[in-house]
C-alpha cells in the first residue's frame, strides 16, 4: 500500500487534535505509528480506517482518495478491517458467531459458506478449540486474536490496529504480537498503532512518529529509533527505552 495524507486537520469541539498532518509512504506492507499518548495516533488511525471524517485534508491509499460521505465510507470499511484496544467482540455471541456475523450480514455469505471460510483460519491460529466460547470465557489474548481473525476472514485489503495489546498483560501481548507477526509474514498489509517499540522495530517497513497532531519524524525503524535528530522524538525514546 502507498499512503498519501495531506493537510489533515481534525478538530473536536474547537480542540485541534490533528494539525495539518502530512505523510507520504513508499509502497509498503506495514506502517507503524508511534508517539506519545494524546499526540493524535489513534485519531489518525480512525480516519484511515474510515470510522471518523476529518475536518479538512485528504487521504489516498494507492491513489484512491477516501470518501467523506457515510454511505461510501461504509462501503470502504467493508474492504478493510479494524481491531481496537479492547471490547471488539460482541459479548452476547460466541467467538464463532462473532466471526460469522460480518460474513453473513455484511458480505452476504450463506451460513454454510461462512463456516467453511472460518474453519481453516481458526485452525491455523490455534483458536478452533475456543470457537464456541463466549468472549467472557476467553482470555484477553484469545479475545484479541479472535477480533483480528474477524477482521481477517472478510479478506480485507488491509488491517488497522489501534493499540491492540495496550489492555493486555505481557504474556498475552506476546501472543497477540506473534499473530500480527505471522500476518506480516503472510503478506497482509496493515497500519499499526502501538507502544511496543521492540515489535514496532521488528515489523515496520516504515515508522511515523506522531506528536502534537503532526508527523514529527518518518522513516525506516533505524532512522526513527537510532538516528533521529528531532529533539522531541529523541527525548521520547530516551525516556521510555531506559
Amino acid at each position, binding site marked *: 500500500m502507498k499512503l498519501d495524507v495531506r493537510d489533515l486537520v481534525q478538530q473536536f469541539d474547537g480542540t485541534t487534535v490533528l494539525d495539518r498532518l502530512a505523510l507520504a509512504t513508499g509502497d509498503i506492507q506495514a506502517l507503524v505509528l508511534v508517539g506519545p499518548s494524546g499526540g493524535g495516533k489513534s485519531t489518525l488511525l480512525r480516519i484511515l480506517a474510515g*470510522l471518523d471524517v476529518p475536518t479538512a485534508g485528504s487521504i489516498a491509499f494507492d491513489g484512491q482518495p477516501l470518501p467523506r460521505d457515510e454511505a461510501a465510507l*461504509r462501503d470502504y*470499511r467493508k474492504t478493510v478491517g479494524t481491531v481496537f484496544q479492547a*471490547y471488539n467482540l460482541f459479548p*452476547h455471541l460466541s467467538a464463532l458467531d462473532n466471526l460469522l*456475523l460480518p460474513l453473513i450480514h455484511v458480505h452476504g455469505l450463506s451460513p454454510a459458506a461462512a463456516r467453511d471460510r472460518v474453519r481453516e483460519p481458526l485452525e491455523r491460529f490455534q483458536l478452533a478449540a475456543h470457537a464456541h466460547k463466549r468472549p*467472557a470465557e476467553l482470555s484477553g489474548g484469545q479475545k484479541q486474536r479472535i477480533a483480528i481473525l474477524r*477482521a481477517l476472514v*472478510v479478506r480485507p485489503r488491509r488491517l488497522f490496529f489501534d493499540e491492540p495489546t495496550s489492555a493486555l498483560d505481557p504474556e498475552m501481548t506476546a501472543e497477540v504480537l506473534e499473530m500480527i507477526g505471522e500476518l506480516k509474514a503472510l503478506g497482509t498489509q496493515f497500519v499499526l498503532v502501538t507502544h511496543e517499540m521492540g515489535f514496532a522495530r521488528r515489523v515496520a517497513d516504515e515508522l511515523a512518529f506522531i506528536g502534537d497532531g503532526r508527523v514529527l519524524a518518518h522513516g525506516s525503524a533505524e532512522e526513527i529509533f537510532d538516528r533521529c535528530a528531532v529533539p522531541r522524538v529523541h527525548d521520547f525514546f530516551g525516556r521510555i527505552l531506559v
Partner: protein
Amino acid sequence: MPRWVAHLLVVVAFAALIAVAFARVNYAWNWAGVWEYRQKFVQGWLTTVGLSLAALVASTLIGTLAALCLASRRPLVEAIGRVYVELIRGTPLLVQLLIGFYVIASAVGLENRFVVGVLVLSLFSGAYMAEIFRGGLAAIPQTQRDSARAIGLTPWQTLRLVILPQALRLVLPPVAGQLVSLIKDSSLLSVIAISEFTLAAQEVNAFTYSTLESYLPLAAGYLVLTLPLSALSRWLESRVSFEA
C-alpha cells in the same frame, strides 16, 4: 441450609408473628359475611389483571417512544422526553389520575373509565420504563458501536444485531420489577371508580364492616400476581451474566 428451606422458615416465622398479633387483639373474624361477596373479588381481580395487561403493553410502547426521545440529538425532541419523564416521575399517580380523568378526559370527551385508567397508568409507568430503556441503551459501551461500524454494519443492523440483544438482557430484570409496581399501582384506579380489585375490597368492607377479611384477600390476590413476576425477574437477572 437449602435456600427454599430458609425461605420457608422466614415465611413461617413471619406468619407466626402475625398470628400472635391477631390472637392478642382478639379479633372477631367474620369470613362468612365476606364469602358471600366472593364473586365481587373474582370480578375485581380479573379487572385488575386486564388493566395491568393492557397497561403493560401500552407502557412498554410509551416507554420505548420516550426513551428514543431521551436519546435524541435534537434538543426539542430530547426536551419533550425529559419534561414528560420528570413531570410524571415527580408527581403522585393520584394527582395524575384525577387530572387525567376529571380534566383532560372530560375535555376531550373520553368517557370510558377503563380506557382513561389504562392510559393514565401507562403514561405513569411508561416514564419509568423510558428511564430503564434509556439506561439499557446507554450501558452498551461505545466500542460496541465502533466495532459494529468497523465491520461494515448499517445503523439498523447495529441496533438489531448488536445493541438490542445486549440492551434487552440488561433491561429485562428492571422491567419485570416495574411491572410488579404497575400491578400494585393499578389499585389507585379505584379513585376514579373503576371496579378493580381494590375497589371490590373497599365495597365488600363497606357492606360487611369486616375490614381485615376484606383486605387480606386483597393482599393475597396481588401476591398471586406479583410473586411469579419477582421470581421471573430474579431468574432473568441470573441469566444476564454473559459478561463476567
